[in-house]
């Protein structure tokens, strides 16, 4: 058993067979073979060893010819490893006695050697580790042949383990069979985190290297509550997690009872609970849990999953399906919030992407792309209560430009005789400290605000949440962040502009008392957290929350704030605090 501590980014526990993704996208198929297939499987293994040997030998000859014999010698050692009799005996035993598939046996045996080499404090073996992986890949490629499978073709339940899932990989996943994610790098707000949240499956990121210690088909537990990844868990651990899973179900049933009840505080103040979604199909998760609307529909995946830039029809179809499912409930759709690198493949690499050309900046620089999205949004506004939100607004000028493009698009559609809501509300994300400092001006020019705590925290504290070395600085509960949030709420209240909060913070029940106490009456949260947040809302009174908020604002650091909030939450809803 091996336990790894990472960052918990999506709650819950998943237990299942590992699907290990390396840079070639390998999936190692099921781990067992039927008893009567053993001889056939061994024959398959020998064929693969022979074929891999021929490949290596061909390489050796080519290199020797071009560079000289001493360079070819490296391949000679490779060949020796591939044909190592001790390895062959070990594989034979795994397949014959334990009925492992040749793929699984190869991966298991070679990774064990790699681990031994890695543990030896001598640099001369470091290179050998790569040799081992090279041989593993070569053998697997030969074993799998055309059966090599893509992630989209997964057909049995798995937990996905990867170095770092790219947005397009996650977008192309076969969701039906993925039970959880764990990645070596990444932080809260990484794409893996957002996708896992959207799929409502557990995820842990930023564990540090572990992929070399695991083979496809191994049993792995992903604990998205504690941020743990457990490789080859022992019986006791498995039993404990099974028990917890059963308890989890019973708590979910308890929360399920709240579905039909409004999010109303004990003293009768109605709180609007909205859901954050990534994909149109998640609307179902929101409706099922009785959400009052969609507070944040992220549209990035329209761009990421596709091979080419989505056209107006693709946009419209996605928006229309959400509008139709939500009927007349509000749907806030955020325009594209991507970095330049994600949209165009020939974009230059920038050294500091979070401070570079992204989000609304990219939209304003690439007007044809922006107009396509806006046209689809405006057209979809005929179907219900659609509201448009611009992300990452830093200056008044940016907001005005964006609104101008929107007005222009509306004018065009008017001329074309297309019906839409001429009064469709337009708002902005408050996630750049500069926007908060100028918020008294912004409130005169928008219909609503939405505070994005993830980016606001990162920009306020100048800390990248996915960088392990500075992630400790990153906390939405930092007093500086809370002051900015309070400033925004105060300015919005003065002009009676509705203000919403989205981001990790709003979906965490730890902060619910504080946020209500600061004056928020609309929270936009991941759908899975709606019942829990609703439970807190229904238990507390506004004066009680205000007292909590007043005290929090006197505290000097995020640790004290979190501890205090945990104690307060424990007093009101003890079952939510572990």
């Amino acid at each position: 058993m091996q336990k790894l501590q990472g960052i918990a980014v999506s709650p819950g526990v998943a237990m299942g067979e590992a699907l290990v993704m390396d840079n070639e996208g390998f999936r190692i198929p099921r781990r067992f073979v039927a008893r009567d297939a053993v001889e056939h499987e061994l024959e398959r293994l020998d064929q693969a060893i022979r074929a891999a040997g021929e490949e290596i030998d061909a390489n050796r000859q080519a290199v020797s010819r071009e560079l000289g014999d001493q360079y070819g010698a490296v391949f000679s050692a490779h060949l020796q490893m591939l044909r190592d009799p001790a390895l062959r005996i070990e594989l034979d035993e795994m397949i014959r006695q334990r009925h492992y598939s040749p793929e699984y046996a190869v991966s298991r045996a070679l990774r064990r050697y790699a681990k031994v080499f890695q543990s030896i404090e001598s640099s001369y073996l470091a290179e050998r580790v790569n040799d081992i992986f090279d041989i593993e890949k070569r053998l697997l490629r030969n074993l799998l042949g055309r059966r090599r499978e893509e992630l989209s073709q997964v057909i049995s339940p798995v937990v996905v383990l990867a170095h770092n899932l790219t947005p397009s990989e996650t977008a192309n996943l076969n969701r039906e069979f993925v039970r959880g994610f764990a990645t070596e790098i990444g932080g809260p707000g990484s794409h893996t985190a957002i996708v896992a949240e959207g799929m409502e499956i557990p995820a842990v990121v930023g564990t540090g290297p572990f992929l070399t210690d695991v083979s496809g088909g191994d049993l792995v537990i992903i604990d998205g509550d504690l941020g743990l990844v457990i490789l080859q868990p022992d019986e006791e651990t498995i039993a404990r997690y099974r028990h917890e899973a059963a308890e989890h179900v019973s708590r979910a049933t308890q929360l399920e009872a709240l579905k039909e009840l409004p999010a109303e505080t004990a003293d009768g103040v109605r709180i609007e609970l909205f859901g954050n979604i990534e994909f149109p199909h998640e609307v179902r998760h929101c409706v099922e849990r009785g959400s009052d609307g969609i507070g944040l529909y992220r549209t990035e995946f329209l761009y990421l999953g596709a091979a080419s830039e989505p056209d107006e029809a693709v946009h419209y179809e996605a928006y229309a399906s959400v509008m139709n499912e939500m009927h007349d409930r509000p749907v806030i759709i955020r325009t594209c919030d991507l970095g330049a690198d994600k949209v165009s493949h020939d974009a230059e690499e920038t050294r500091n992407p979070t401070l570079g050309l992204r989000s609304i900046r990219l939209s304003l620089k690439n007007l044809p792309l922006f107009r396509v999205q806006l046209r689809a949004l405006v057209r979809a506004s005929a179907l219900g209560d659609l509201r448009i939100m611009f992300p990452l607004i830093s200056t008044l000028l940016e907001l005005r430009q964006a609104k101008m493009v929107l007005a222009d698009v509306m004018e065009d559609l008017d001329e074309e005789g297309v019906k839409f809501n001429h009064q469709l509300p337009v708002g902005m994300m408050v996630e750049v400290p500069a926007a908060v400092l100028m918020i008294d001006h912004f409130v005169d020019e928008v219909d609503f605000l939405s505070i994005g705590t993830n980016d606001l925290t990162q920009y306020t504290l100048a800390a990248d949440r996915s960088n392990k070395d500075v992630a400790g600085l990153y906390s939405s509960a930092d007093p500086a962040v809370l002051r900015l949030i309070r400033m925004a709420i105060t300015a919005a209240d003065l002009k009676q502009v509705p203000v919403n909060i989205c981001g990790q913070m709003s979906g965490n029940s730890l902060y619910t008392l504080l946020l209500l106490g600061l004056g928020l009456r609309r929270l936009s949260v991941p759908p899975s957290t709606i019942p829990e947040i609703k439970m807190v809302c229904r238990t507390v009174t506004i004066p009680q929350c205000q007292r909590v908020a007043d005290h929090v604002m006197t505290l000097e650091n995020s640790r004290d704030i979190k501890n205090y909030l945990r104690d307060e939450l424990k007093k009101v809803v003890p079952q939510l605090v572990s």
Partner: protein
Amino acid sequence: MANGTFSRTVVVTNPQGVHARPADMFVKLASQYESKIEVIKDGERVDGKSILAMLTLAAVEGTTLKLEGTGPDAEAAVAALAELVLRDFDENEPLTNK
């Protein structure tokens, strides 16, 4: 011919130790003999005909290795293998050019 066990102790003297190429040479030579060949380092005993096992020994320069052969041609095998180690796996010659 009797099936005997022969052994000899040698010290690795080539600067890079038993890395991939020397291990390859050792295993190739060992495999030419019928006898079972084992290599022992600090009580750890591995198959001398397995390059992966040889590499796990991490025999760097100065390591003492005991070479043990069991079988009909054990004596000749151990002598030839010891010779290979003592010849620095034929690696010493290019070194003089450095």
